[in-house]
């Protein structure tokens, strides 16, 4: 999705119900919300519930004119997500949700905003980056991310420190990032591609 400024004009379009703006808004923040929640909630259903409830409340706040700082829209979404998450932890969020209002369904979380072709291209790029790495770095990433071993133990086994791991990830990400940005920028605003999973 193309970068858009979260400013007064953007908020006005959201409030007015502009479809493209709403689609962009949901797609953009859905991904961030998922990244935020996956380390805190293990159930995909719980993640989806919190995501939906977050957007329900944010849109209610938009309709009520409660967004006073448009440039801080992102922080507002994050804050709302934190509140919903707390309530989820206390297992009382469903009672305090806006049951009286019409529930709006937001696009499913497993919609890939990048498209099948772009995803394939990026997958190939990542494969290339991994193949160019020394074998031990590949094994290091495998043990950290795939086998999910304790990071300190893995670093000790490989004779590296945590800084090495960060730099390894940083360099790999940077190698991939320019292609990723190119594909993200190439998507029309709010465009949602075919389902990936």
């Amino acid at each position, binding site marked *: 999705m193309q970068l858009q400024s979260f400013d007064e004009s953007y908020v006005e379009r959201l409030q007015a119900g502009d479809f493209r703006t709403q689609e962009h808004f949901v797609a953009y923040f859905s991904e961030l919300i998922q990244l935020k929640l996956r380390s805190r909630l293990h159930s995909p259903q719980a993640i989806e519930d919190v995501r939906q409830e977050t957007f329900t409340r944010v849109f209610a706040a938009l309709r009520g004119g409660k967004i006073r700082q448009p440039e*801080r829209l992102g922080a507002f979404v994050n*804050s709302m997500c934190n509140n919903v998450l707390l309530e989820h932890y206390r297992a009382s969020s469903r009672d305090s949700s806006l049951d009286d209002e019409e529930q709006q369904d937001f696009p499913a979380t497993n919609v890939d905003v990048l498209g099948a072709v772009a995803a394939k291209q990026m997958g190939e790029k990542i494969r290339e980056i991994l193949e160019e790495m*020394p074998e031990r770095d590949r094994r290091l990433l495998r043990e950290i*991310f*795939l086998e999910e071993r304790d990071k300190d133990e893995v670093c000790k086994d490989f004779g590296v420190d945590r800084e090495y791991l960060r*730099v390894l*990830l*940083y360099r790999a990400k*940077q190698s991939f990032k320019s292609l*990723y940005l190119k594909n993200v920028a190439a998507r029309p605003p709010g465009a949602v591609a075919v389902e990936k999973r």
Partner: protein
Amino acid sequence: MDHDEAVRQNATERYLLDELDPELRDQFEEHLFDCQDCALDLRAGAMFVEQTKVILAEPPAVSESRVPVTEAAKPGWFAWLRPAFAVPVLALLLAVIGYQSFVTYPSLVATANQPQVGSWASVNVSTRGTTAISMKVRKGEGFGVLVNLPPEDGFASYTADLYNPAGKKEWSRQIATASHEETRQIYIQGHNLESGTYALVVNGITPGGESKELSRHPIDVQIQN
């Protein structure tokens, strides 16, 4: 947490590695939701990690080849001794192969399998480099410098100049800019490095071609034996 802090702390990588304590994690997330640069950075990193898991989970490709087996012709009793010089040449070859197999190659493998952790430093143009960076390298070994450029400051491009301890400019390199990429990598070759304080100067080049010094970063290089 502001953007500079997030970059300085490698917050994206630490977030992906789940290394941030709860307070820092919350601060980073609050910044992330408002900062499109950091959000894109994290999304790229997250996609890299997810795809890496998929790719590394694949079984290694096994290539099968069918080598036709042909029946070797039966040589005569003394065929292997002809011509006469074949035996000493073969003996010499065996000696060379033996030496390489038992001495040279294991040594090379041991060296190649040593952890290869390159030295690197990070400089932030915005902070102007008041504190000297200490860099300990072996003779002939170079090091990397990650240069964090200020976002959207109107310069068409940047150059990085390296001055040796005597104050003489060793080289000047152009740093190309691309939108959304604020960190560039510069590798400083090790073959001419000596102990002493070098200076890495980052200059901004205006669209009109004018050069303006943005920051000067002292690098205290110590060559270790």
